[in-house]
């Protein structure tokens, strides 16, 4: 018996070592964080900053920690990995540039594998380790919905890329979005399509927009259809003729969903998914020879460089329309985008991560740091709490993070941005052309 065990273990270990050694896609080591040890000797003894007088305080020797947790090994890993790397690179860069008023910015991560149970455990662990947690960044809709109440009770600011309406506005209060909620997104794009229907309608389509909502059967996938967004679409005169689901997997077969949509007379498809979800729809539309019968629209995650990783042919992407609540890598005249590009190159991230996640989280960390700075400026370092950061976020609004890469306005009880662009893929990868510049979105948040 023992013999079996030994050989079994040996084989497993050697397989993992051999394969591990030549593992595919060697992901770069998590951020070579240069610890900014001993910043230039402080002239004055850095006691806890005195009463906030004029001029920035000197916080050398202090550490301010940002926590983040998300799915690095479950279904959403494809999008979470660049988000996390963006956050980590941004933090490292801030430390290299001297930190936050001299204080070192630390960032701690927990992998939840997409499980809410794990997210709660991570929250308990982080709040147990730290008496005064300020900011936690999360990445998934389900996690946000489950934790929003805890963030509000614990007075910990939660910046999130999981844009579920319920997470922000039901039993919530400390959860702030890095993008508009999905109901806003679908309303925004549909209003635009309604107004410009003659320009974008498929050949042979009627005067009415008939919407097919094809998406994943998950909190995220179903996140755009709420009572508010349904009522708004009805007001616009847009009928939802089909609601179909398909598997949360790049191997999903969407044939039945598409054909059911077609049979119901749909001419517009909305899919509330990540890049690979949009790709499956586009692939299958082409494989079925039906691409020219539909306008395909998606949420902000659906239009990304990652979309191309899953398209059977890059040409299939052309014509995809999406909400675009941030600038893009091609907007090189923007200093924020230039900064992100520099970080991307300095950290030698793989081309596959040159996507929305990385850019957005550099802006997200910038938002967090600005808010913390603002809180220190107004209340002093000794009064720096999650609540102070929360107040700072509201106080600062409206606000442009990272030189306008992201535009947020958290005033008036809103905790998610309400301005965005609409872009359309015209030509090859990266050619996300603006078809609607920054504009006010319909406000479809649920009643609190």
């Amino acid at each position, binding site marked *: 018996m023992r013999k079996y065990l030994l050989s*079994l273990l040996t084989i497993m270990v050697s397989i993992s070592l051999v394969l591990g050694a030549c593992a595919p896609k060697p992901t770069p080591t998590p951020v070579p964080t240069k610890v900014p040890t001993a910043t230039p000797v402080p002239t004055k003894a850095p006691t806890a900053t005195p009463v906030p007088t004029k001029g920035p305080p000197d916080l050398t020797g202090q550490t301010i920690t940002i926590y983040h947790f998300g799915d690095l090994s479950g279904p959403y890993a494809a999008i979470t990995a660049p988000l996390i790397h963006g956050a980590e690179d941004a933090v490292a860069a801030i430390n290299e540039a001297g930190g936050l008023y001299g204080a070192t910015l630390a960032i701690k991560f927990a992998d939840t594998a997409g499980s809410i149970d794990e997210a709660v455990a991570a929250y308990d662990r982080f709040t147990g380790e730290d008496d005064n947690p300020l900011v936690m960044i999360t990445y998934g809709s389900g996690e946000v919905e489950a934790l929003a109440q805890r963030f509000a009770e614990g007075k910990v600011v939660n910046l999130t890329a999981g844009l579920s309406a319920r997470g922000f506005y039901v039993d919530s209060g400390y959860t702030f979005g890095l993008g508009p909620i999905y109901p806003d997104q679908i309303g925004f794009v549909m209003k635009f399509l309604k107004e410009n229907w003659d320009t974008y309608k498929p050949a042979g389509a009627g005067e009415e927009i008939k919407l097919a909502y094809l998406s994943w059967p998950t909190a995220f996938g179903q996140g755009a259809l709420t009572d508010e967004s349904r009522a708004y679409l009805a007001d616009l005169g847009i009928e939802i003729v089909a609601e179909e689901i398909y598997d949360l997997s790049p191997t999903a077969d969407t044939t039945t969903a598409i054909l059911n949509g077609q049979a119901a007379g749909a001419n517009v498809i909305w899919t509330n998914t990540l890049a690979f979800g949009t790709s499956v729809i586009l692939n299958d539309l082409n494989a079925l020879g039906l691409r020219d019968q539909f306008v395909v629209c998606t949420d902000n995650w659906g239009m990304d460089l990652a979309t191309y990783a899953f398209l059977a042919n890059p040409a299939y992407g052309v014509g995809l329309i999406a909400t675009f609540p941030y600038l893009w890598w091609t907007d090189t005249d923007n200093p924020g985008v230039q900064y992100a590009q520099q970080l991307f190159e300095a950290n030698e991230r793989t081309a596959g991560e040159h996507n929305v996640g990385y850019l957005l989280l550099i802006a997200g960390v910038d938002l967090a740091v600005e808010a913390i700075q603002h809180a220190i400026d107004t209340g002093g370092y000794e009064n720096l709490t999650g609540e102070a950061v929360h107040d700072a976020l509201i106080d600062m609004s409206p606000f442009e993070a990272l030189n306008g890469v992201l535009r947020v306005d958290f005033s008036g009880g809103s905790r998610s941005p309400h301005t965005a662009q609409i872009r359309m893929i015209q030509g090859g990868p990266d050619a996300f052309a603006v078809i609607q510049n920054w504009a006010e979105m319909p406000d479809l948040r649920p009643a609190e």
Partner: protein
Amino acid sequence: MNWQLVPQFAITGLLAGGPIALTALGLVLIFKSSYIFNFAQGQLLLMGALLTWWFAVEHGLPLWMAILLALFLSALLGLAIERLALRPMTGQPLLSIILMTLALSQVLQGLALLLFGATQRNFPQMFSAANPYRITTPFVYNDRPIVVILKQNLTWSFVVAVLGVLVIGAFFRFTKTGLAMRGTSEDHELAQSIGLSIHRIFGLSWALAGVVATVGGILLATSSGLDLSLSVVVLAAFPAVLLGGLESIPGTIVGGLLIGLSQGLVSASKVSIVRNAAEIMPYIVLLIVLVFRPEGLFGQKRIERI
């Protein structure tokens, strides 16, 4: 029912049943020889697809060579599993054996995640993703003939899968090794007494199961894409196996196709909740089979005595 969609979905469902049948075949191969129900078959399939991807994309080998290498390695993997994990379990109760294959599935899933990461990836295309076949059916709806659209990759995956099952079936029927394997499945002790090495035969069936799984994995990955969730196809294959009969090779084809067909047909319903039931259709079929004909369509009924 959306009647104009019925022919389309029936055929799409049948085609999707091909890879299910192939996966089911892997399960039957092992069960036939050693009475082990392999819960790790989905992970074998995933490993096979990942290996192919690794050779073809990461190392730039030509696809045929990558496939051959992956087939070879997965056969080895099958052998190793039989030798190291399941042979020590000989004579153990059913629960232990079931748990052993469940444990294997966890280990393989963990290894896949550790070695290849969770990112989704594009798989080399073997069949065209465009230019679907259009078949005009004799049915008419709204005065227009119903045209069935068949995706090329789905059609060809189906053809390869069914060919695979037929080849294995022929192997069992017409070769000497196949005969020995069938003999072993009848009675282990009897087989041993006439000079068959049952351990070799167990090993062979696991190796074959590894090969079959890899073919299935490649077919699934090439028509859509590759990520760790590929292993869930086996969850549709379990009911197919029970429907066809645990020990029947032709049963896998019938079972796989019927499961695919049932999923296709409910998708044509007008009621959204019935349409969404497509994902659990295999298990509804399974419950029906368990209640009315537990031995499956082609299985053998066993009568128990104390």
